[in-house]
């Protein structure tokens, strides 16, 4: 997580998308990560086809039945099929990743760009504020947001998104600082380019590679955070088949039905691992200096 804070610089000449994918698949972590994420997306899209049961249907089988051919991951205390719930849960997990990272990435990007570009007082005040928010820690910001917005999965996604804005703003800012002092940028300023053109044509493209890496890794952080909030009862509500929430309802039955605790946990861990590996892979492709390690 912290190592993602180093800016990534695109290798000379932006690679075409196909060769990017090829390069990604040649890195071990990128390949594994890509496969995991692809499986997750497939599960989410094809949930209706893959899942043998309606994830909300009670008494789809006997209550608390251990894993069997009929119920691969067993059933829960309402007789719902745990496998089907996990497959449908992939949809919620993807939503969490996209919405939370979407919020923090776009807001953080704008904040960092504006602060880095504006320089002077605007920069100092904005970045000071970002530093302050950063030191509040994400969990506290998320709790504060939930206290205002109220409990629920959508609100939890928003809260997590808001909580990570300072992180993305810092990274964007640090990349902009480097770019700002490069000759090409100074030339563009001297050439009389407008503010918007300077920001969007010159700074933004150079920030994007770093943010792709950070954003990919950020999905894993967001998924973990959302699962944690749902586990605490602040996120998903019944009967949503959200993995963290499923873990929290497994607690009372941990000795009688350990499968209710094991499979949702494995699903979270594999998803998070997948995005972590994918992020590492993308970094390796985009930043040859890192590849040597």
């Amino acid at each position, binding site marked *: *997580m*912290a*190592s993602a804070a180093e800016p990534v610089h695109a290798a000379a000449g932006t690679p075409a998308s196909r060769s990017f994918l090829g390069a990604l698949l040649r890195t071990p972590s990128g390949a594994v990560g890509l496969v995991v994420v692809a499986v997750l997306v497939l599960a989410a899209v094809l949930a209706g086809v893959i899942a043998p049961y309606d994830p909300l249907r009670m008494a789809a089988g006997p209550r608390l039945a251990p894993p069997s051919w009929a119920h691969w991951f067993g059933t829960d205390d309402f007789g719902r099929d745990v496998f089907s719930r996990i497959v449908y849960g992939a949809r919620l997990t993807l939503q969490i990743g996209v919405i939370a990272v979407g919020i923090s990435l776009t807001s953080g990007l704008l904040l960092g760009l504006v602060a880095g570009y504006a320089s002077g007082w605007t920069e100092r005040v904005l970045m*000071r*504020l970002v*530093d*302050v928010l950063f*030191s*509040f*820690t*994400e*969990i*506290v910001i998320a*709790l*504060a947001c*939930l*206290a*205002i917005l109220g*409990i629920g999965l959508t609100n939890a996604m928003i809260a997590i998104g808001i909580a990570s804005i300072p992180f993305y703003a810092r990274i964007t800012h640090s990349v902009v600082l480097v770019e700002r002092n490069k000759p090409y940028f100074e030339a563009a300023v001297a050439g009389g380019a407008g503010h918007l053109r300077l920001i969007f044509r010159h700074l933004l493209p150079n920030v994007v590679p770093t943010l792709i890496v950070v954003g990919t890794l950020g999905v*894993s952080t967001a998924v*973990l955070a959302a*699962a*944690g909030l749902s*586990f*605490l*009862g*602040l996120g998903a509500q019944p009967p949503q088949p959200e993995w*963290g929430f499923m*873990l929290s309802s*497994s*607690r009372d039955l*941990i*000795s009688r039905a*350990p499968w209710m*605790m094991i499979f949702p*946990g494995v699903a*979270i*861990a*594999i998803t*998070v*691992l997948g995005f*972590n*590996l994918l992020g590492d892979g993308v970094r390796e492709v985009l930043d040859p200096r890192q590849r040597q*390690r």
Partner: protein
Amino acid sequence: MLRYIAQRLAAAAVTIWVATVAVTLLIHAVPGDPVRIMYAKFQSTPEQLEAVRTSLGLDQPIHVQYAMYLGRLVEGDLGRTIVGDQPVLDVLLARFPATLTLAVASLAIAILVGMPLGFLAAYKRGTWVDIGAMLVAIVGVSMPHFWLGLLLLFFFALQLGWLPVAGSGIANLVLPALTLGLANAAVLARLTRSAMIDIFDQDFVRTAQAKGLPKTVVLYRHALRAGLVPIVSMLGLQFAYLMGGAIVVENVFAWNGVGRLAIEAVFARDYPLIQGFILFFASIVVIVSVIIDVLYAFLDPRIRYG
């Protein structure tokens, strides 16, 4: 150096000041009438609500409210909880030692497990030891704290019956501290490895090796000491992560710290307690990071501040 410390303290003061503004605004960001939400208990009358509004100063303009809030803050008055009507600061202070105990024990475990693992991986870079260690670490980073907690609970407490499941004694500390410590050990192992690789690549280590100094001397006298510097600089952030993680882990193991309190407060919409918690927690994290930054400045002779 003094100037550096002064700068860091000033920054910390600004952060805490922003926190006071943020918590004052928090109550106004709540949709609806905060007093009604908070105090609309069984049989409260409009007159009572009005009295509450006046006593909290919520009928005043916002800058006056803020001044009142600061005034009370200076006297150590963070308001009273909605649930049970008790001084917020007392409630927080009563619960804080448990959280601090958990955080310190977890940090110790994270350091004892994570740093040797990262060091070993860096030293044996590229070998199966390195790959294995980093695999363990990335899996550790990817596991939700609370799931690791449930697994430990399942195996050690329920299957093997070795440890008590929950409570507040020393034996009860083992599982939550292990959960939080191991999860953070994974992060620390990755950090340590990357810091040590940077050191190994640096000229002074290579020079020492070229001079024919014994390997252990090079390792301990030069590389390890130099490597510690960037790692210590990350401990502040680690501590913040730990405190955040503690909020969840406390709830898994019924550890009676401020984290559990905070979640209860959010559920109960006990805004004075939530406000107090945010201010308290942010202050602790900021102060610890100042202390670590200052230690770092003492540790690292190469860097001149100011």
